[in-house]
Each structure stands twice: as structure tokens, then as C-alpha cells.
């Protein structure tokens, strides 16, 4: 589906839109509640205490007249207090509701952003993962999502809130004294421009501080990671001097920022204070001349205070806006990448047939060709051995078989049981091709969960059985918590060999009809290697096996062996045939197997 930045944001917003609307409404209501207080003060001062006839909204006036008018109110002053408290309760409820709705909206939004990006990334093709840096993607998924969320739930809502408060305050002021309000209105743009000027200066200085602090942080980081180099070269002195210089720079930058900030706050405080003074003095003069009531003056002063706050915040919000824009773009880069998608009529045929590579040619994007005219068949139930060196293209073969990469048109085809795998559903292919990678990844969960990953409804005895075949059981027995041992970051670190064996167990549990061992016993010694292979042969007699290795002893018992050299099939045949051919295979065999004799001769 083609989508734009806006449609991306709207999809993220699904489910949280009503909370945003509710928050907006409650924020408006709360502002109104707050705006009524000065009016109540005004009425109390003018009508009740001052005895003047101050205006009241129609409904309230009729109600008051029925109760007995202003004299009644003088006897029952608590009703005014009650009105204030009732209004306050409503206001407080709105405030509570506003903050709760903002949380629901913002957190709901960020949750759907996270889930959607995560699930999108899981669905992206493997090639995308190869082309992008892990750190950068994670940065986008955490920091950028947080920035967008902060903007939408904090800044945007306070922007709206500020605007509402400002407009409402000015409107109420206008209702009290149009002349005074107009004068105040004129000063607002000056305050805003003034604040914007300082913001810019301060933002620049902030950046300076950040950069300086980043550098200091780098120095510390390098000193800590390079501690052995520092000690071994005896350069503690130099390091300390380097640190001190930067430490002083950071301090100076912050002091400078402090000067700017203080100047801004205090001059701003002075200006708003001066404005209050103006309102007070002008108001008092008007009251003395009889063109304004005392209550109106007090209301004006309160409104002026209420209107002063949002102006200050607006400047900050505007400067944050550009940051959110950048973050949205960075997220959009991820979300606009095309997910893997199977066609509607993708097949799910039986996978226990022969595997055929038919004249396969392949190259990775922007790279020289990796595979040249690869053509071979693995009969169902037999074992194929692939012998190849680093970079010979053997792993690429398996990427293609597992459809981590798709073969472009005219580059040959790969079939299982006569059906082109390109026509099958990807998850179907992958779940029927069990694969053990050379450097397998285990996840930070228990060992049992790791082994059961990729298999639904595995019982503990299944897991134990798989671990036994993979020769992992004796290692597990040595862990205090056995199969419940946490693996990875928050648990024990497994050795390379243990990891490989765990990955083998994980693959065995899948009971896939096709099994691929991509150099997957490189970290265990030859004896364990042999033991595992013996157990495998016994258990998985009917599965089709592909063994990739640089170790002849691992491959020599395979039904068919293929020697891969620079992306081409150099030789193919059984162990015996290849030995008789006297080619590459023979050479490698001779060198590897004769080493022991050579060693004794030395």
C-alpha cells in the first residue's frame, strides 16, 4: 500500500483520536472554569460589597431574583464560596480528565507507533536489514518515536491549551474593558517577538553545551574502553589533562548559557511585571475617574496574569516543532519500505520432495556476482555436503533456498518436489527448511524457550530430547537452573559451541523435512561434531540434509558432495568419486587428513 507521511500518522493515531478530542474538550472546559473566577470576584466586590448593579448572565440573575436578590446574597455569602468551590471541583475534574486523556491519547499513540514499526520491521525483507545499520534503526524506533510522541501529546496539546487560554483571557478582558484590552493586545506581538529572539540565542547556546558535553562524554567513554591502552602506555597524565580541558569547556559553555537564560527569564519577568503595573495603574486611574468599577479592575489584573503565561510557552513550542518534523521523516523512511508480501495464490505444497537448483545465478545489489550457473539436485532423504571457503557463496545458496533473498527473473530457479519455491508462501518455505546458522542468535529468555522458539506446543520432554541429540544436555545439567536458565544479556553467556548446539536443538524441534547446517559446528571440536552427526543420522533418517563446512571429515559421509569455488561448482560427486578425480577436494582432503602424520613427523 502506498502511503504518505500524513496517512502514516493517521494510521498511528487510530484508536487514540477520540482521546485527543476528549483531551481538547476537557482542556477547553477547564480554561473556561478558570476564567469565571475573576468574574465572581468582580461581582462580589462590585455588587455585594460595593452595592453597585453589576451585570449578570440572564439565567443566574433570574435565579438570584427568585432567591431574594443581592440582599439575600449578603446574608448568605457562603453561596458565593459554594459557587467557587463547585466551579473548582468541575475545573479540577476537567484538569484530571484532561491529563488522563492526554496520557491515554499520547501513550496509545506511542504504543501503536511502536507496535506498528516493530511489526513492519519484522515484515521487511532480509535485504533491507542488511542494507541498514542496526544502531540507526533502533535510534529511530526509540528516540524518534519519543520525539514525535512528545510533540503530539505534550507540545501540541499545550499549544492548543495556550491558544485557548490566551484567546479566552483576552475575550473576557474585552468584556470587562475593551479599551485597556486593546492596549494590552498591542503589546503581545512585541513580547512574542522578544521571546522568539531570546529563544533563538538560547537554542544556539544549548546546542553548544550539548556538543561540548557530548565531547566530554566521548573522552570518558574512550578513556574507559581504552583503559588498557592508557595504562599500558602510562598515559594517565595526558588523559587527565585532556579531560580537564574539556571539562572546563563544558563548564564555561554552561555558565554562558546560564547568563543568557537568566537574562531572558528576568527581563521577561520585568516586562510582564511592567505590563501588570500598567494595567494596575491605568485601571486605578479609570476607577478614580469613574469609568471602571473596582471589581472590574481586579478582574482585569487577574486576566492579565492568566494571559501572561501562554505567551511565554508559545515560543518554546514553536522551536520544538521542527525537531518533530525531522523525526517523522526518519520514521517515514522505515514505514515506507516495502514489506515482504506473498501473492494471494501462493502455494503450500508438500516439502519432502527433491531439491533442485536449476542454473542459478545471483548477485547482491551493487555487488559483483556471487553465484554462477549453480545446477544440482538433492534427492529426497539424502545428504548433500557443500565444501567451500570463506566468501565462496555457500551461505548465499542457503539464503536463496530459505527465500531470505528472492531470485530475480531469468536467474534460474529453485524447486522442491518440482514446485518453484518462488511460487510458495515464504513462511511455508521457511518453516519447512530448518536452518542452523554459523553464528546463531539466542534470545534473552530461558534456554527452554529458546529451543522451543519456532515450534508451537513443544513439551519439555520434546525439548530435552532435542537437546540430547544436539549433545547439549550435559552442558545444561551444569547450569543451576537447567533449562530455565536465562540466556543472553540478563543471564548466562554461552560459549560459541554451546550456542551452536542450542541452535541445532532448536532446529531439530522444528522437525522440518529439509535441514541445513550452515557451518554450524565450526565452534565444536571434531569429536563432538561426529557424535552430533551420528545422533542426527539415526534420528532424522528421512529428512533431506544439506551440510556446509570447510571440514572434509564432516562432509565425507554425505551422499553427494559439492565443492564451491568463487561462486562456481568446481567439483561434484561422492567422496570416493571426488578422491579419484584428484582435484581440489582431493588436495584439501590430503592436507587436512595428513596433518596428524605431519605433526608427528615434526
Amino acid at each position: 500500500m502506498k502511503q504518505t507521511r500524513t496517512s502514516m500518522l493517521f494510521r498511528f493515531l487510530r484508536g487514540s483520536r477520540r482521546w485527543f478530542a476528549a483531551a481538547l474538550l476537557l482542556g477547553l472546559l477547564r480554561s473556561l472554569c478558570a476564567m469565571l473566577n475573576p468574574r465572581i470576584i468582580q461581582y462580589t466586590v462590585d455588587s455585594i460589597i460595593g452595592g453597585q448593579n453589576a451585570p449578570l448572565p440572564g439565567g443566574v440573575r433570574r435565579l438570584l431574583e427568585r432567591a431574594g436578590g443581592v440582599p439575600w446574597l449578603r446574608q448568605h455569602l457562603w453561596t458565593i464560596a459554594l459557587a467557587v468551590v463547585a466551579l473548582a471541583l468541575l475545573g479540577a475534574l476537567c484538569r484530571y480528565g484532561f491529563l488522563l486523556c492526554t496520557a491515554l491519547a499520547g501513550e496509545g499513540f506511542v504504543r501503536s507507533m511502536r507496535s506498528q514499526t516493530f511489526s513492519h520491521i519484522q515484515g521487511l525483507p532480509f535485504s533491507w536489514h542488511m542494507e541498514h545499520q542496526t544502531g540507526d534503526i533502533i535510534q529511530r524506533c526509540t528516540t524518534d518515536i519519543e520525539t514525535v510522541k512528545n510533540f503530539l501529546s505534550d507540545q501540541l496539546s499545550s499549544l492548543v491549551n495556550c491558544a485557548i487560554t490566551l484567546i479566552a483571557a483576552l475575550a473576557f478582558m474585552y468584556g470587562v474593558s475593551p479599551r485597556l484590552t486593546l492596549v494590552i493586545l498591542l503589546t503581545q506581538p512585541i513580547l512574542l517577538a522578544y521571546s522568539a529572539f531570546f529563544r533563538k540565542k538560547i537554542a544556539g547556546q544549548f546546542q553548544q553545551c550539548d556538543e561540548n558535553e557530548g565531547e566530554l562524554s566521548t573522552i570518558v567513554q574512550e578513556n574507559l574502553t581504552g583503559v588498557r591502552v592508557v595504562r599500558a602506555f602510562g598515559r594517565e597524565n595526558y588523559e587527565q589533562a585532556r579531560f580537564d580541558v574539556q571539562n572546563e569547556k563544558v563548564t564555561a559553555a554552561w555558565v554562558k548559557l546560564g547568563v543568557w537564560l537568566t537574562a531572558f527569564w528576568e527581563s521577561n519577568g520585568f516586562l510582564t511585571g511592567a505590563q501588570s503595573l500598567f494595567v494596575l495603574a491605568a485601571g486605578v486611574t479609570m476607577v478614580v475617574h469613574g469609568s471602571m468599577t473596582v471589581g472590574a479592575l481586579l478582574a482585569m489584573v487577574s486576566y492579565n496574569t492568566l494571559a501572561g503565561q501562554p505567551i511565554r510557552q508559545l515560543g518554546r513550542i514553536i522551536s520544538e516543532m521542527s525537531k518533530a518534523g525531522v523525526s517523522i521523516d526518519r520514521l517515514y523512511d522505515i514505514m515506507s519500505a516495502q514489506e515482504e508480501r506473498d501473492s494471494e495464490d501462493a502455494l503450500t505444497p508438500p516439502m519432502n520432495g527433491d531439491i533442485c537448483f536449476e542454473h542459478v545465478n545471483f548477485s547482491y545489489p551493487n555487488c559483483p556476482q556471487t553465484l554462477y550457473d549453480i545446477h544440482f539436485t538433492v534427492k529426497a532423504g539424502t545428504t548433500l555436503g557443500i565444501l567451500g571457503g570463506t566468501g565462496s557463496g555457500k551461505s548465499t545458496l542457503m539464503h536463496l533456498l530459505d527465500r531470505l533473498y528472492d531470485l530475480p527473473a531469468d536467474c534460474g530457479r529453485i524447486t522442491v518436489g518440482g514446485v518453484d519455491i518462488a511460487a510458495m508462501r515464504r513462511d511455508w518455505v521457511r518453516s519447512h527448511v530448518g536452518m542452523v546458522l554459523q553464528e546463531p542468535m539466542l534470545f534473552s529468555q530461558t534456554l527452554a524457550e529458546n529451543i522451543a522458539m519456532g515450534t508451537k506446543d513443544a513439551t519439555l520432554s520434546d525439548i530435552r530430547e532435542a537437546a540430547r541429540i544436539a549433545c547439549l544436555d550435559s552442558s545444561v545439567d551444569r547450569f543451576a537452573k537447567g533449562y530455565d536458565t536465562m540466556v543472553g544479556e540478563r543471564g548466562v553467556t554461552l560459549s560459541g559451541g554451546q550456542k551452536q548446539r542450542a541452535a541445532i536443538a532448536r532446529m531439530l524441534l522444528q522437525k522440518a523435512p529439509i535441514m541445513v547446517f550452515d557451518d554450524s559446528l565450526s565452534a565444536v571440536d571434531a569429536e563432538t561434531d561426529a557424535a552430533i552427526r551420528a545422533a542426527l543420522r539415526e534420528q532424522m533418517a528421512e529428512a533431506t540434509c544439506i551440510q556446509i563446512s570447510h571440514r572434509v571429515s564432516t562432509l565425507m559421509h554425505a551422499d553427494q558432495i559439492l565443492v564451491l569455488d568463487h561462486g562456481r561448482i568446481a567439483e561434484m560427486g561422492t567422496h570416493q568419486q571426488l578422491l579419484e578425480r584428484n582435484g581440489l577436494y582431493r588436495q584439501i582432503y590430503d592436507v587436512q587428513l595428513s596433518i596428524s602424520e605431519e605433526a608427528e613427523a615434526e
Partner: protein
Amino acid sequence: MKEHNRLPFFGLGFVVPYWKQYRGLAVAMVLCGLLGSVTDAMFPLFQRYAVNHFVGGKTLDTMGIFFAAYLVTLLLRALLNGSSAYLTNKMEVSLDFSIRRDVFAHLQELSLSYYNQNGVGYIHARVISDVDRIGGLCSWMLMNLIWEGSYLLYIIVIMLTICPPLGALLLLLMPIEAVFCFYFQHRLTRLGRQVREANSKVTADYNEGITGARTIKTLVAEGEMERRFDADAGEMYRTSVHMGRYRGGLRAVIDLTANLGLALILWRGGGMALNGVLAIGTLSAFTVYAINMTGSVQEVAEVLESLINAQVNIERVHTLLSQQPDVVDTPEVIARYGTSLQPKRENWEPLCGDVEFRDVTFHYPDGEEIILSHFDLKVPQGASVAIVGETGAGKSTLVNLVCRFFEPTEGAVLIDGRDARERSQLWLHSSIGYVLQTPHLFSGTVLENLRYGNPEATMEEIELACRRVCADQVIARMEHGYDSQVGEGGEMLSTGEKQLLSFARAILSDPRILILDEATSSVDTLTEQIIQQAISEVTRGRTSFIIAHRLSTIRGADTILMVKDGQIVERGRHSELMKRRGAYFRLYMRQFERETADRLLDKE
């Protein structure tokens, strides 16, 4: 990670010596704060005067003086609060500066064992974020407490003076509000911690979901990963929304108390005004005080809460600073050889490079397991020792002992026939060259990095060194030659290039003892050859300890030590060990198989 020491009084005692360093600053800052809040407390009084005097007396006669006095107070406020903010900021950065300097200096002295027990991330956080928190807390938070506290005190005094009954009424509201504020604030802090924990889980999920893409795809485990992720994201959602509830509660309580105060004033104060006991201006001043009071009470509650929470930060830094180095030079050694910051190089005898382990028994300070037991090894000047074994088998132990990063539990390491402890650490370190598996370069230029081990090296020496290890080709390829930036940790260079530069660096410092941790990563054949050549160039004529992976390096060593599970299981020359058919033989075979396949299949 170590438990931190508990400190009394929120750990503030730790900061006292630092405050004392900036005594004048502290006094000025507090004074300005105490005076600044007075001016702020005054403004409602101006309003009171204006209403009572001008409006009440229907006159404008003192308007000029009023105007001037108001303006002067505004100016005073700007000056005093501005100064206090400036001074507080200065206090913050000064505290940051000196605490950070002390922590960093201490880290330079701490033994390597500390670095083995604590990850870089952990220590880094102590130097940067903990110090930041402490600096902020002991300046701004404290200033807020002083400012808001004194402001509260002033307005209480003013209220009780201008109208005692109304003042007393408002005063009653304070404790009620305070209790609520503390409650909410406390819950918010705890929830905040939970949110951070949930957040780190989500980040970890991203990490696994992205780095593990290949495994996940081959297992078709996308769905499972998404379920796990959604569970963690859901957890974070719930905690965050819960937090929103308490945040809403807190603001609602503050709003409510402010308006409750207003209601009380309109009710009781209004009554008093009707009876002519209270002037309108005074009434209006109270409406302002009622609102400001609630804000200040909330601030105080917030500051106190963060004070309690920052205790952890202080304790962690304190723990780091009170950590004693495991390896220290004796006073006699310092007297003769000097310290690492003030060395007495004139007293140093030259180091030849004979290394001997004499009856060494060793276990790491944090571990029980005996790693070496009555170990003897003589490495004459210029000889090489290859240490081999699986990743994580404990190959670096010997290196750590040679470098005196650790000291033997029993027995001694002899350098040139004398116990290493008889000479200073710097004396030894100045003669050691160290080339890491993942070579560590510092951000800066190529030249700065090359001179790291020998700041006085001339350009000719540098060029010669680079030529000897073929690093000159790397430098020639760079845009600014020797003045090119290498980036943070040398990120602008490939691992192979970094290795060559670090070889040149090692040669320049002309060490008598060389420690080399070979890289395991496979590089292309040509680079491999260059590096191989460079290694033999660097080790020539120096006593060298090599954590080796390349068969050619291993075969050429005078002694091979095979390490398994932290113990030295076999030692001898290559041919002897091969005959034994033990662990070394198996390891060698595996490596050999790989190298033959690579060599035969990739030959051009």
C-alpha cells in the same frame, strides 16, 4: 556491579566538602534567593495599596511615587532573582566540574580489576549522569527549596500581619495540600521508575528484533516476536497511563486547594468587607496569595521528593570514589620512582625485558577459583609466548599479570630478575606496548594517535615506523594524511587499518615488552599477509606475549600456553604439543581445516 554504601542524611554529607570549596558562591546564592523571594512576596501588597489608597480615597496624588516604587521593586526582583539564578547555575556547573574531575582522576588510579567487574556503560553513567544529577540537586533543587520555602514564610507573615483571621484560615489549607502533594509525588516517582524499566525492555526487544532478523526469519518467529513486543509495549502503556492518572490527581488537588482558598476568602473576607472591617484592596491581595501559596507548597513537596531520590546517585558516586585500587606502589617505591602523575624518571633504570613467573598462584579478587597454581615460566628477553584457547577461556590472565594490572596472590612476577612490585607501575607501563584485538584509537588525528605512546617522536621516526608495518599506505589513502581525523574510537577506519596504525603506535613507543591480542575476524588474503608481516616486524627483538589465533604466529612462538576453562592445560613448543594429541592438537586441527579450505579454494 557492587552494592553501594548507604549514607545518612540523603548522602548530603558527601557534598559538604564541595560546597566548602565554593563557600562564597554558596553564601551569595542563598542570600540573593532569600532577598529575591521578598520582592516577589511584595507585589500583592502594591495591589492592596493601589485599591485601598487610590480607589478608596478617590485620589491619584501619590501615583508617581507608587509607580516608581513598583518599578524599583520590579528591577530589584529582576536583579536579585537573576543573580541567584546565575549563581545557582554557576554552583551547579562548578559542582559538576569538581566532582567529575575527582571521579575521573580516581578512575585513572583504580586497578583494572574494577574495570573487569564493572562495565564501561556502568562506569560512564557514574561519571556523566550521576554527577549531573548531584550537581543539579545540590544547586537548583536546593535553591528552589530555599526560595519557595522563604517565599511561603514571607507570605505567611504578611498575611498574618495584614489580616490575622484570614491568614490563619489559609494557613490551615497548607498541611492538607502538602500531604496530598507528597502522596502523589511519591507515587509518581515510583511509577516513573517502572516506566523506565518497561522502556528498557521495549528497547531490548527492538534490539533483538532487529539484530536477530536472520534467525527470526529462518524460524518464522516473527509472530512470536511481535507478541512478546506487544506484551512489553502494553506493559509500558499501562504504567504510563497509570502515571497520567496520578499526574492528573496531583494537578487537580493543587487547583482545588487554590480555589478552596479563594472560596474561603470570598466567604469570610467578603463578610468582613461588608461589615467594613476589611478593605477591598486587602481582600484582593489575599486572592493572589491564596493561589501563589498552593504553587509553592507543591514545589516544596516536589523538591523534597527528588532530594530523597537523588540519594542513590550520591551513594553510587561515593562508592566509586571510596573504591581502593588493588594495585598500589609502596611508599618506598613512590619515594624513588615517583607517582604516575609526578614520575621521577631520572631514577628509573632501563628495562631489558626478561620476564619470569616464579611460583605464581593467582585468583581474581572477585573470584574464588584458583586460575594459576604454583606456575613457573621464564621468558628471556626477546622471546615470544603464544597463548591460545577458545574465546572466553581466560587467555588474558597472564597478560594482566605481566602488565601488573593484577598482582599474584602468591609468588611473584619478576621483571629483569626483580619483583615487579619493587618498581613503580609507570616504570613498567612505560616499557610495555599493547596492541588490542579490536585496536583502540582515540578520536583525534592520525598523528595524535601515533604519538600516543611517545609524544616526543619526530616526524622521521613516525614515517619510518609506519613504513615498517605498511601503515604508510593507509595514511596515504586518507584525505589529509597524518592530519586526518580518525573519528570516535577510530570509526573512520576499517579494523585492518586500525590494526596497522596501532602497530605503528606500538613501534614508536619502542617497548621492551609487547602484548598483542590478535584479531579473529577474517580479513581478505592480501590484508592478512600485510598484517602477518607487520606482526613479525613489531615483535622482532621484543619480549612478546601474544593471544594468538593465526597458525603462523602460533607456530613461530618460543612457548605455547594452551588455556582451557581459565587454566593452563598444556605448554610447550608446537611440535611437542602436536605429539601430545590433546586440547592444543584439537584446536590446531580445527583452525587448520578452516585455513586450508580458505587457502585452497580462494587462491587466485
